[in-house]
């Protein structure tokens, strides 16, 4: 319930995301928590934004390198701090910019280190997932009915 409420307030489908890649190091590490806001009309160069590319499974969190806008639209070019080149190669064929209204899922405004690493362990590490389930099963033995 709070999640949906937070989603509405921030206008972002996913108001809190966990960093999954190392493309923004040393700023962000895998497992860090990012807080998103999506009520801003425009982004500024330097903002860290989250965007989706059709066909790619996970959203990308990168920094805005260039922006071009008029009163109706804004076009952005992004780049990961830890990548040697900008994201042009990640976009769809013939897509040279991200459209602020269509492609941007949120702008990062807040940060918390490492707290999300548990979710990465649960989804990626089989031993951790079964170990956790085993622990839960064990703890039910010690509960009173």
């Amino acid at each position, binding site marked *: 319930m709070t999640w949906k409420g937070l989603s509405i307030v921030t206008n972002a489908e996913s108001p809190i995301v966990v960093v999954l890649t190392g493309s923004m190091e040393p700023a962000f590490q895998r497992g860090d928590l990012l807080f998103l806001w999506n009520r801003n009309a425009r982004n500024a160069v330097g903002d860290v934004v989250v965007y989706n590319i059709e066909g790619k499974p996970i959203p990308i969190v990168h920094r805005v390198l260039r922006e071009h806008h008029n009163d109706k639209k804004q076009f952005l070019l992004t780049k990961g701090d830890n990548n040697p080149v900008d994201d042009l190669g990640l976009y769809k064929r013939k897509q040279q910019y991200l459209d602020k209204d269509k492609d941007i899922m949120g702008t990062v405004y807040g940060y918390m280190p490492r707290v999300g690493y548990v979710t990465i362990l649960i989804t990626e590490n089989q031993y951790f997932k079964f170990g956790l389930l085993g622990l839960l099963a064990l703890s039910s033995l*010690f*509960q*009173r009915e």
Partner: protein
Amino acid sequence: MDALPDLIEFPIDFVGQRKANRLTNLLLFSGAALSVLVGFVSQSFINTIYAFAGVFVLTLVAIVPAWPYFNKNPVVWLKPKKIEILL
């Protein structure tokens, strides 16, 4: 199987529970303030984390085991009385 929860119960009395509750809050929240101070003065973020980790462990050690301090006022149960039933 049913005896498992009893094995790890380690109960404390009611007065002890109140003491434990107050002590928990005292230790953790003053420890939190201290941790922030330690980090700020040493201008190191990680020191705050280390300091609070220490506070947390200290609090666990002070509160979780059933120390005799928490069992000073055991509950006095009434003794069963013998009743004569007159028919």
